[in-house]
């Protein structure tokens, strides 16, 4: 389990925030440190994940795909089978227990792909809390199905339409909201980034993934896996999958970043490899940022909204710097190919974020021996990506369907305008 020295991981991490946020972070740090050493709290957390989210998630072998690729045996850690469809719920459930202890009534969150926002909206509904979710306006368009669900769950979704209109701007906006509302609001940061104690705290809640992989691998494989692979946006699913193997040098740990369209500035989200990114201090912490010489954070791109982020967890930045974690990247087209392979061979629909891990994991498995085992963390399911996939693989049939759907929706809106009581009737029934 990782733990920081004053919120620092090597040269990365720290707490570089406007003074107004400091007391809330100190309060969170105190509560986290108390609970971290409280085994009862961890048991309460595990019980909640089991009863509400369906843990443990399975470790699924991929026999047909493994045979087809001709290298190591491939296994998937099925975080996609969590309630809400992604690993994000692990962290949100944990932070919800913290909110309960702090007695706060409102939660805010930033979200890229919408999975963290969705998980936050779900827990707000479950606990009767008010929720506001900040989301880049570009991501709102890319992940509208999640926006729809968040609003149905009762959360306020605020599109952020300045800067690059993606995750980093949503994070800035959430920090601004928090600066004005710290007394009654908790910021449920969604990944292992941001000011201390968030990187460590989010990793703490996500480590349940690697705890389970470890136990399941021993049971199903009879040994630890030879490699664990995960995609890296902010880094929470990767750290969750890697955490319990950090002291096991026989287990190779591989993070896969978004290679996007190319390695030109603004066309990818590669921070952990080469010198595309450099150390910087922004958004409350020090890490590797894609930035220019003036320290302005750069534009990013990924086919997966959840990986489209300019910074990376300081914990991962340090682990890569120390050589414990390797990093690679997958381009948008490699990702789409991996996505199709998993569907066609194994009947599983992965998220585009997780498909980066698939692309990197498949490439690694091909180079390994048939007696070896690779576990790929399938961080989320692909339902939310249906529009993106349909755009990446354009088909006339899909276009025809959308046209019919627009016609039907217009018809329903006209009907409800003519008969407003129908809507009111529905709302009062709810």
């Amino acid at each position, binding site marked *: 389990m990782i733990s920081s020295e004053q919120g620092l991981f090597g040269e990365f991490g*720290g*707490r*570089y*925030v*406007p*003074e*107004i946020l*400091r*007391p809330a972070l100190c309060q969170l740090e105190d509560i986290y440190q108390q609970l971290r050493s409280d085994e009862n709290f961890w048991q309460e957390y595990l019980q909640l994940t089991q009863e509400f989210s369906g843990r443990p998630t399975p470790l699924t072998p991929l026999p047909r795909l493994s045979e087809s690729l001709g290298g190591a045996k491939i296994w998937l850690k099925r975080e996609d089978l969590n309630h809400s469809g992604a690993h994000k719920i692990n962290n949100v459930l944990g932070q919800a227990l913290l909110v309960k202890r702090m007695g706060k009534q409102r939660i805010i969150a930033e979200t890229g792909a919408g999975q963290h926002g969705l998980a936050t909206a779900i827990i707000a509904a479950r606990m009767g809390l008010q929720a506001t979710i900040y989301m880049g306006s570009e991501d709102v368009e890319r992940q509208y199905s999640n926006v729809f669900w968040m609003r149905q769950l009762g959360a306020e979704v605020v599109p952020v339409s*300045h*800067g690059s209109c993606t995750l*980093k*701007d949503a994070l*800035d906006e959430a*920090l*601004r909201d928090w*600066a*004005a*509302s*710290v*007394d009654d609001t908790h910021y449920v940061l969604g990944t292992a980034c941001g000011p201390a104690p968030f990187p460590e705290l989010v990793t703490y809640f996500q480590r349940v993934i690697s705890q389970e992989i470890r136990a399941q691998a021993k049971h199903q494989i009879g040994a630890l896996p030879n490699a664990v692979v995960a995609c890296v946006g902010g880094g929470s699913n990767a750290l969750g999958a890697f955490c319990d193997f950090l002291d096991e040098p026989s287990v190779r740990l591989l993070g896969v970043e978004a290679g996007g369209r190319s390695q030109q500035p603004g066309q990818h989200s590669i921070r952990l490899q080469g010198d595309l990114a450099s150390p*910087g*201090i*922004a*958004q*409350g912490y020090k890490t590797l*940022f894609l*930035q220019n*010489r*003036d*320290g*302005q*954070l750069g534009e990013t791109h990924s086919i997966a909204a959840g990986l489209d982020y300019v910074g990376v967890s300081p914990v991962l930045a340090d682990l890569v710097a120390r050589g414990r974690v390797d990093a690679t990247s997958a381009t948008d087209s490699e990702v789409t190919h991996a996505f199709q392979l998993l569907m066609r061979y194994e009947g599983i629909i992965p998220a585009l974020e997780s498909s980066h891990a698939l692309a990197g994991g498949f490439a690694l498995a091909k180079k390994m021996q048939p007696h070896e085992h690779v576990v790929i963390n399938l961080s989320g399911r692909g339902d939310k990506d249906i529009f993106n996939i349909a755009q990446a693989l354009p088909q006339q049939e899909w276009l025809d369907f959308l046209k019919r759907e627009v016609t039907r929706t217009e018809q329903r809106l006209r009907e409800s305008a003519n008969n407003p009581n129908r809507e009111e009737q529905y709302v009062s029934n709810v």
Partner: protein
Amino acid sequence: MFPTSNESLKVMSHCVVGFPSLEENEHAIDGLVAAGIRLIELQVPFSDPVADGPVLVNACVKALARGGSFEATLALARKVSRRHPEVTFVLMSYLNPIYQYGIPAAIDEIANAGIEGIIVPDWPVEAMRPHLPHMEKRGVAPILMVTPNTASTRIAEIASASRGMLYVVSRMGVTGSSTHWGEEFQIYIARVKKHTNLPLAVGFGVRTREDLQALRGRVEVAAFCSQYIEWQAELGSERAAERMAQVVQSIHAA
């Protein structure tokens, strides 16, 4: 020169370097000086200004597209500090542009450009401390911030590291919204004054003449920034400066 303690209220105003354009920054500053402003913040535009509200965020986005940068801020400072020696220029930046430049070199260049102080909202006192001797040597005053939720012991710590002025954030939140100056604010100011003799600059929510009246006699500096940038965006620099002249006169007239 920074104001001294118990001096009458001074107005500090603002320039986002690159907004509306680098050329107009110079004229805008001339206008502010003509309006009687003697304290001006030069803001290095930043891609992720987390302590700023919508007005300054939007100004930063535009400024960056129009060539605003740390270097451009130094270049502007060199010109305007020579042209207006009676004015105290303060650099306002987030930490990353300074960090990328190299902190000691950045402090040297800030001093060389005729800038007398710096305000960096995301540079906490503990991270700034190793650089304080160099700032002292080069005559660059670190102007740190305290907020309503800052504990008294920490106010003392921040105040002891500050020079020139102590920036008092008037309320919880980001720049650009309104503030109430009631009893709670008075208690807060009294609490801050227990820990420092530095002149106090109050910012975040100073938008009207009434705000200035409320601050008169209580603190030495009022940061009248977001509202000025809003006027500048809506009316142009010339008319924004006219409004600032009325603001300054309203203090003297009262």
